[in-house]
């Protein structure tokens, strides 16, 4: 009985993740191709759908704990799905933020070429996709690989920050555009961060090992705290 309920719950989470991954991809595609419809679609149609998934998965997890008293790996999985649900809801909000800033930007001249944003988005969205795959297939190796990719996104994010800083120094009239592009980069960075969180959870489900604090300490020793 619990087995079927868990399978159903996982299935819903995967549907939700697929929706959110699509939202992020659309928000960047809308920016790169100046496609207003795609961006509005994310805000007006996808976000309410994401909210419904969030509510439904929350309720299902709570009911499942109340009704079936899952233990050991089952318990770790349900608790993790609750957290991942929250993560996906945050990422959906990030996609909305990106779409809003993109709507502002596509109506105006570019402050800089968007190659960095494109590559950052590609990596972040791949990290999200892989984090979900790692969860579905309980693939710890893939989960660890995603965690390692976080730095790539951070580096591009920092480069965009530097570029925008110089742009603002030189051209005062582009401040709002620069801040919007910065906001997009920051939101992509958050998507990557959250994907690593999901992967840490996957490692917790499969191996019962909590690597969160260890990793954070390691990262801070190497690179200083992330902004």
């Amino acid at each position, binding site marked *: *009985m619990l087995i079927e309920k868990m399978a159903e719950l996982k299935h819903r989470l995967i549907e939700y993740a697929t929706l959110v991954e699509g939202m992020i991809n659309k928000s960047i595609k809308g920016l790169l191709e100046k496609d207003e419809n795609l961006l509005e679609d994310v805000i007006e149609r996808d976000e309410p759908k994401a909210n419904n998934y969030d509510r439904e998965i929350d309720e299902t997890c709570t009911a499942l704990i*109340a*009704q079936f008293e899952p233990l050991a790996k089952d318990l770790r999985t349900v608790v993790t799905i609750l957290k991942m649900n929250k993560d996906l809801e945050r990422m959906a909000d990030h996609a909305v933020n990106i779409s809003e800033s993109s709507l502002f930007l596509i109506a105006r001249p570019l402050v800089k070429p968007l190659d960095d944003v494109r590559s950052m988005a590609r990596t972040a969205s791949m990290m999200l996709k892989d984090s979900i795959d790692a969860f579905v297939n309980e693939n710890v190796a893939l989960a660890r690989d995603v965690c390692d990719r976080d730095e790539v996104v951070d580096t591009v994010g920092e480069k965009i920050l530097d570029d925008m800083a110089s742009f603002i120094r030189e051209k005062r009239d582009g401040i709002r555009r620069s801040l919007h592009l910065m906001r997009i980069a920051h939101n992509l960075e958050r998507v990557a961060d959250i994907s690593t969180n999901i992967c840490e959870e996957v490692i917790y489900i499969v191996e019962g090992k909590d690597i969160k604090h260890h990793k954070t300490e390691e990262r801070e020793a190497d690179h200083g705290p992330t902004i």
Partner: protein
Amino acid sequence: MEQEIIIQIKDANSFYGAKQILKNVTLNIPAQTVTALMGPSGCGKSTLIRCLNRMNDLVPRFRFEGNVLYKGIDLYGKDVDITDLRREIGMVFQKPNPFPKSIYENVAYGIRIQGIANREFIDGIVEESLKRAALWDEVKDRLHESALSLSGGQQQRICIARALAVKPHVILFDEPCSALDPIATAKIEELITDLKNNYTIIVVTHNTAQAARVSDFTAFLYLGDLIEYGPTAKIFTVPQDKRTEEYLTGKFG
């Protein structure tokens, strides 16, 4: 989706002598679902389930007021044949109670007393019922051994197979696992979940965890009153009545 209501309990009041047990209980039971009746000892849950196939009729000084409609027909109406009724609404009890006969004869009993003697037909029903009760594989090579030689959990499944053999539409389970160990309990619970695809199931249990696991709907009774009734997932996460909340969190009962 509107679910078909198979049993309607309307203003049920019951008494043992002067003592009132059920107080104005009104409840609709949807077809092909599992409904759990839970509550502390003395809340009336067993009395209520026994009203559904008139098992209380022979209890001295028992009195029932109100209606129980099964597919729209009042079970307490004058023309109701109790034997027919119990064929439609079967029952499995707390303590496994197989007859001191062979496994085969236990399951065949209900058909034989209907006057059916066709061996092949009975063979077919016995096999089908044992399969539905998830017992066939365990007993198919010893159908003619005594049912009393089986374990408690198997005996309970024989009783379920015996109930299924007469093709009921509703099966009442009165504390079906309280005499069983956890493994046998898990098997019966799984079986209940499977059976709801073809039958309507009503289970009395004082085990709240069991009500939570097996049922789609839960009714909470307390001192003869129906306090709350609704989807199990709701009752166990956000009960509407303070007494349900207190019962589930172990404050009483």
